[in-house]
């Protein structure tokens, strides 16, 4: 551990494969089984390989599989798994309808990581600190998982099973995330606290609110870096739906958030501080989303 540093060169003790189609990728996955790893932008995987937390025999790059990249609008908004964080943040439909996701992408530490890192890599890596995860959760996104034989769509709320763990089965590839159209009167927001700008979060929060006049008709809240997986806050949501959207109501909901989360103390922050700021940014995100919902345009 001590010698396996994240800035050393990884020795090429693996084979590097570059499929051009999904079909080819599935064949390669089937051939090499559990010891193969998919590579999108590599900003998580390569760090893990340097630290020797991952030692794949085969690295299968998805960069040439064209069908995995890009954003298309239909009944749902489909974001290809290998779309870069930067492209997501600059996408017209994302800017128009999914503010929390756009803000999450813009909150990424540095431009270089935004250019290399992908949305699929972010959620498949399943770090509790993944910035897009809480945003995708509140936008009610689903993950499209394909294998050589079948396709299934898993709501993102059922996707994460633990730190670094997801429901993805051997042989499956995440091809896209799908976001339903936001309801009329929707506002959303994402906030992140980090130690310096170029850092992953100490805590992040995403919120979607749907309002009808002064009443909250729907609400979703999710936080990152406060538990083993990105967490949805059902209690706090329960306290808001059907209520009037007042600063007091939002503050009360934020208090529930601070109680419900299960943060730990690590190098980045203490448990206490995480609870403390979760309350503050949950409150602020709710207030912001509420205002945005009033501003008319379904955001």
């Amino acid at each position, binding site marked *: 551990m*001590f010698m396996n*540093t994240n800035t*050393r060169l990884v020795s090429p003790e693996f084979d590097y494969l570059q499929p051009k189609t999904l079909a080819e990728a599935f064949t390669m996955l089937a051939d090499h089984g559990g010891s193969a790893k998919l590579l999108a932008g590599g900003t998580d995987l390569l760090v893990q390989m340097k630290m020797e937390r991952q030692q794949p025999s085969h690295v299968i790059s998805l960069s040439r599989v064209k069908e995995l990249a890009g954003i298309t609008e239909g009944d749902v908004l489909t974001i290809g798994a290998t779309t870069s964080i930067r492209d997501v943040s600059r996408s017209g439909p994302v800017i128009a309808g999914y503010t929390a996701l756009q803000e999450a992408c813009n909150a990424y530490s*540095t431009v270089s990581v935004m250019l290399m890192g992908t949305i699929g890599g972010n959620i498949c890596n399943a770090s509790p600190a993944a910035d897009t995860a809480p945003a995708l959760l509140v936008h009610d996104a689903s993950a499209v998982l394909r294998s050589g034989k079948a396709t299934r769509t898993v709501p993102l709320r059922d996707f994460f099973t633990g730190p670094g763990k997801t429901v993805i089965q051997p042989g499956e590839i995440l091809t896209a995330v799908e976001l339903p159209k936001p309801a009329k009167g929707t506002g959303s927001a994402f906030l992140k606290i980090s*130690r*310096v700008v170029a850092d992953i979060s100490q805590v992040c929060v995403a919120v979607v609110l749907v309002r009808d006049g002064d009443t909250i008709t729907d609400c979703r809240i999710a936080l990152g870096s406060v538990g083993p997986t990105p967490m949805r806050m059902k209690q706090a949501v329960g306290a808001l739906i059907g209520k009037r959207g007042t600063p007091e109501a939002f503050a009360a909901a934020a208090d529930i958030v601070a109680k419900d989360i299960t943060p730990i103390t690590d190098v980045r922050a203490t448990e206490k501080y995480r609870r403390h700021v979760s309350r*503050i940014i949950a409150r602020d995100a709710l207030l912001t989303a509420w205002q945005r919902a009033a501003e008319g345009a379904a955001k």
Partner: protein
Amino acid sequence: MNKLDSAATGEHNVNFRQIGKARTRTDSPGKVFGKTPYAGDYVMPDMLHARVLRAKVPSARMTRLDVSKARALPGVAAVLTFKDLKIGTVATDIPGQTGFKRRATDQQILVDELVRYQGEPIAIVAAETVEIAQHALSLIEVDLEPVPGVYNVFDAQKPDAPKVFGTDNLVASYKVRKGDVEVGFAAADVIVENTFTTQYIEHAFLEPEVGLGWEDEQGVINIRSSTQAVETFRYIADAMGLPHSKVRIRGALVGGGFGGKCDVTVELYIALLTKATGRPVRLGYSREDSFYGHGKRHPFIINHKTGFTRDGKITASKIDITSESGPYAFMSPYVLMYATEAGPGPYLVDHVHIDSRSIATNNMYTSAFRGFGATQACIAYEQQMDEAAKVLGIDRIELRRRNLLKTGDAIATGFKVQSAVWTEECMDRAMAALGEKPKDKGAIRYGHGLAAYQQGYGRMIWLHDTAEGWVGVEMDGTVLVRSGMTDIGAGQTSSLAQIAGELLGIDMMDITVYNSDSSTTPLAGTSSASRGLYMSGNAVRLAAEAVRDRLAARAAKHFGSTADDVDFANAQVFLKSDPRQTMPFKELVAVCASEGIHRAELAIFRAPFGDWIDPETGQGQVHPDYTYGAHAVQVAVDTETGEVTILKSIGAHDIGQAVNMAAVEGQIEGGVAQGHGYALSEELIYKDGYLVTPSLSEYLCPTSMDSPRIECIVLESRSGLGPFGAKGIGEPGHTPAAPAVANAVADAIGTRVFDFPLTPEKIANAVRKARKAG
């Protein structure tokens, strides 16, 4: 950039042609276009690659070391352990000093029995590839039996503490006794007492330590490395039992040093492996090797007890200083000396009582870091001034104004400062540039903070500091400079070109500077202690003046005038009294060459020499001279989350005379950014001796996204000891930056966090505590 107008400052009537201008540096084009070779870019045929095996635990006894498997690995050329060393230890003192006997605090090169810090080197390997070397490390079998260690300075001072250093863990201690503090406190209306602490921090230079070594046809071990100190060649020779003449160190342009490349780093391992294998050896540290592999900035605990009259005059200053040394001495005694000397800050205090000590622990060892202890002293005395102002109900700037040292006043050690002391002007200019404080918005509070400082430049005078420099003119009229000075990114070589160019009338861009070679460039000491320009600049000035004098004498003969009527500019020689009389510089040089007039000069510059300060009273002279200035900061603090945003950051310094104004501003801006990180986010955290922040993803340096635009206000008193009246600015730009941030944060939140760094969590807690207390 601003200058005081000449009426206000009595500016001398000097018309420089190149000096003082903001010029593109001679090293800039190569860096901008990616052409500059750094030490790590050099390779040689048949070269081996080295790696270092480090102890995984901070305090242990080595009971077994078996390298047989590593040696047997195909592709491994050498594995060295303590058993293979002739000498076993290497000096950790300031290299190149002459006035004082080297301290007997040498460090083991490779662990022979006891491991005293996590990361201490146990074995070094050279192999055909980095991968084989890395693999070989994993084949080395080491048994380390933990022995009780000591991980904080309080425990280390207890009588039954494990002994890390000497018989009592005391690495150094000093006293200052000026006047009588009891008398001073008796005269005080108000006494303010506070304790301030600072943390371990990392130099975090962009370029980790790296070097390449080979043995040449004369049996000289050559090393090309990233270093601030080519003069460590002597320590390497001593550690290998070689004559000094058989080790040569050459630097390259360096990707940052900040004091972290003043000690021997990779050079000795490279030399040992080169000698053992007879082949060239390259060793490049990874970032984590760098975290484990060089000395850090000392954490300090500083207690200030200060007496004031009701109207804010300081009557007495009692200061207690403890620094953490880690297990080895390295620069700890000197760093402590700086902190002690700077103890009360840039203020006139008649009654001073300082006790200071440096304590050994099994945390990482510490060494030089930009400011060298004066930085930590400033963090304490400037926060103390703000706290005192609050208690006294006097404006913070006004309180300083009432106590600032003036030219000719005696500092804590009794030494009377001879150069201009323009702290007040700097303070006023910095505050004026800060402007109005914005109105608070909800949880966001705005704060202004200032810190003034005193920073010695040049080495402590008992080290008898000298620097040599060579200037010569080629037959075609081109100018060469040779100086042993290393160039660590501050533009050292460029400034030497500018100095020679000014005196010989040749544009700096047309001058070639050979530097940083311990064998072929005249030695000029380390680029440290804000001494680079002061020492090597003066040596090159003297050499250029001597050459110029001889050329001028010959030109005078040509013009039928006198030598002092001859001037040099734009590659022409002409008469001041009649500028129409000109001659190309080139032609004059050709005449001199044909007549055998010496066109070159090797000069030596000597800083003031002196003795140690009195050990009982701490009275005497420590530094040749001092730089003064002030830094002001505006911050916004989110009182709920504790997050700090630095909105404005203004450094105002009297630097005596700028040689290259752009380089001066670069030094200030870089030092300030480093100071901001020091105040807010940077911290090497050791838990029972284990580093828990071993990479740049845990150890947080600010990036451009965290930094405001930094404004520089450069005043020029022309009163310094450097060339043309320059003072040192390499460290001073950094010194007040961190305490200014701390004072701004305290101003914003109405309470203070006494422990660096000021993390959002500490700030949020302090706000809550203050609110509870009402």
